[in-house]
């Protein structure tokens, strides 16, 4: 590298057209990843702004800042945006899109135009929903339970449902694309058991997307026709079954929570292996657990319905299966820990996020088990205990993993390095702010504070105050990486091909990679995470202690 600030050419950022039009009509998976990244960041900020408003409202027991209706719209907007427009596409459509072809040594995904199309579908559906929520509002919660959503809620529910329905197809297309790519596009020598775990995780995610999303699509469509045209399907007044809606919804939405965690697990495996310089402990078992989680995840949806009036028999089956799905998750936690054993560890920013993920995911998962113990769920169902559970996994887990992955592959994405000190500082700040926000919610949840409450009884006030204070800290925390990474794009030093000394094909090409990824088609001769061998890549910059 001649000058420390110039990027290698050709690279996909500068070659292939830099006009807006060329970006919007690109079929390069690396550019589509950027399109997604920009849009999900926007939606994350929008969803977070709603969260911040909610937290401010909840500072006092009376409903004084927002009207009840506004508050209900806020958490609906927050849930819908965060789940479907942020977290579901968060890792697969950004890092996954960017990295899967690179990691398996392909020039692009199997269907590049389909890939761009799924972004357009996503953008259109999401924008449509946001329009619906702004013009008229939606106050059903992200779960759209009937008959509230189909017959009682006022506001623009039909449009919002239609928007989510549309975005579903983007998920489906991404899923198809990933599955075919992993099956058909692997470079010579890239056997299944040489795939990086990140690819395994996204492959399993794609399978879930393909199998579960259509069920959500048809379910939402039925609610839509019921609401818009009066074609009653779940309507109890016609003898329809409101619980059937819940079965169908959770048949998608429980597997969807694994859509929202498996890619994060994939990221963490890469980070831990690289920053401990060790092959992931029990690679085969790790890949197996990913598939096991994806499969078993389809069998547990009824644990959201323990007090809904579902038959006790079904409840027992769902409860039992929920405990089974915990075993592969526990194996993963164990193996990450075992990977650290006798490693050569550096606490780079990415690693800090990964460690944060491990701890917070474990807490979220273990409280998930409490929820799955049916008797406890009778008490804490629909309380803040559940809210805390899923924020621990989704925010503490997946968002941490996303940020960790973003930092780790940032040099590959942009060719530049960010400021390491601020990187680590923000990781710690987010960790602290996160716990302050959501730990109190476990406590008040067990004390009986119901969720989706605009005003509440005063005994819960102290915990709410703590939680709101944490949210402010968290907000500051989230802006730091945004600034740090943004700054690096303008001022950061050129990163070099492989700053962390990581294995994996993506590090064998230049940073940023050329338009078709590799100058010479790669041939794979080794297993993944080959850190032990003598000619393993070494970091090409000084690592902090």
């Amino acid at each position, binding site marked *: 590298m001649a000058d420390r600030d110039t990027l290698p050419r050709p690279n996909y950022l500068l070659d292939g057209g830099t006009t807006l039009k060329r970006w919007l009509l690109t079929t390069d998976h690396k550019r589509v990843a950027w399109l997604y990244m920009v849009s999900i960041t926007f939606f994350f900020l929008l969803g977070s702004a709603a969260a911040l408003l909610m937290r401010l409202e909840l500072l006092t027991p009376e409903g004084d800042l927002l009207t009840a209706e506004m508050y209900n719209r806020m958490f609906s907007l927050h849930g819908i945006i965060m789940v479907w427009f942020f977290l579901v596409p968060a890792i697969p459509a950004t890092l996954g899109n960017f990295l899967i072809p690179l990691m398996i040594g*392909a*020039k*692009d*995904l*199997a*269907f*590049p135009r389909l890939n761009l199309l799924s972004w357009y579908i996503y953008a259109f559906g999401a924008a449509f929903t946001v329009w619906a929520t702004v013009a008229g509002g939606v106050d059903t919660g992200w779960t759209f339970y009937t008959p509230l959503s189909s017959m009682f809620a006022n506001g623009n529910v039909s449009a919002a449902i239609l928007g989510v329905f549309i975005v579903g197809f983007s998920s*489906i297309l991404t*899923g*198809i*694309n990933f*599955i*075919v790519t992993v*099956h*058909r*596009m692997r470079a010579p020598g890239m056997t299944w058991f040489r795939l990086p775990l990140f690819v395994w995780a996204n492959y399993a995610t794609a399978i879930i997307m*393909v*199998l*579960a*999303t*259509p*069920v959500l*699509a*048809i*379910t939402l*469509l*039925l609610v839509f*026709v019921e609401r818009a*045209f*009066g*074609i*009653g*399907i779940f*309507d109890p*007044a*016609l*003898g*329809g*079954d409101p619980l*059937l809606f819940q079965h*169908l919804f959770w*048949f998608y939405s429980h597997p969807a929570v694994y859509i929202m965690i498996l890619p994060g697990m994939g990221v963490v495996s890469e980070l831990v292996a690289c920053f401990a310089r060790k092959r992931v402990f029990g690679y085969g078992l790790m890949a197996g657990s990913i598939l096991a989680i994806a499969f078993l995840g389809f069998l547990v949806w009824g644990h959201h319905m323990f007090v809904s009036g579902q038959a006790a028999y079904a409840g027992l089956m769902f409860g039992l299966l929920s405990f089974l799905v915990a075993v592969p998750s526990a194996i993963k936690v164990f193996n990450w820990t075992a990977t650290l054993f006798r490693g050569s560890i550096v606490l780079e920013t990415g690693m800090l996020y990964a460690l944060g993920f491990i701890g917070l995911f474990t807490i979220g998962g273990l409280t998930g088990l409490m929820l799955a113990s049916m008797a406890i769920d009778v008490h804490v169902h629909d309380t803040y205990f559940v809210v805390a559970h899923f924020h621990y996994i989704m925010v503490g887990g997946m968002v941490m993993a996303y940020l960790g992955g973003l930092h780790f592959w940032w040099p590959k994405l942009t060719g530049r390095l960010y400021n390491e000190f601020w990187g680590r500082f923000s990781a710690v700040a987010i960790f602290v702010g996160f716990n302050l926000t959501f730990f109190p919610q476990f406590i008040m949840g067990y004390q009986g504070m119901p969720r989706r409450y605009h005003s509440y009884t005063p005994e819960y006030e102290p915990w709410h105050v703590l939680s709101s204070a944490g949210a402010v800290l968290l907000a500051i925390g989230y802006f730091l990486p945004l600034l740090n990474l943004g700054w690096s794009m303008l001022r950061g030093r050129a990163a070099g091909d492989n700053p962390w000394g990581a294995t994996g094909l993506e590090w064998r090409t230049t940073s940023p990679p050329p338009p*078709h990824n590799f100058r010479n088609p790669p041939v794979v001769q080794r297993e993944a995470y080959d850190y032990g061998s003598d000619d393993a890549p070494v970091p090409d910059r000084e690592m902090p202690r």
Partner: protein
Amino acid sequence: MSERPEALRFQFEDLDQQRAADEFGMWVFLLTEVLFFGALFLVYAVARWNHPEAFIDGSHLLNATLGTVNTAILLTSSLAIAVADLAVREDARRLARWMLSATLLLGLAFLAVKGYEYLLEYRHHRVPFLDRPFEWPGPDAREGRLFFNLYFAMTGLHALHLVVGCGLVCAMLWLNERSRLPARLTAQVRAAGLYWHFVDVVWVFLFPLLYLVR
């Protein structure tokens, strides 16, 4: 291989890889369609489980003769597009043109019959979601509404898929005249055929469940 190189898209190494990817992709897409309709069948199954009498009464109100005719039409159309697939493969464009046209016409015939059935339903006041009285001979008028709502939702969604299928067949007819890339055309007709057959399979289940199980 004799195929022209233009048929190969940049991301693939060779035509075999491309063909395999295309076909596999189409099947995975059909897999999503199976689940899409499958969940609708679940809704039907649960409603029927809860209200068996109303559903039996309801199926008596449908015109089984028209349903049978329509099934035969759709099965024939499937044969036609299967033959078209074979014809394109052997580069017999004229036969392909005939067969694709037959498919299209049969598809439209199905839609016409379906439309006529809808009209009958409308005349007999059996469209529960329109703002007019709903007439039901049996005791369970409410569940009867549920039956007809489901009937319209299921057949309507199926008909919508068939409309898309007709559009695809039109496109194939056009390509059949224009295409200079036989390898590409074969793949395209194969994909369109797969879709058409899938829509046929859905009907194969819809028909007895709605019209016949009495």
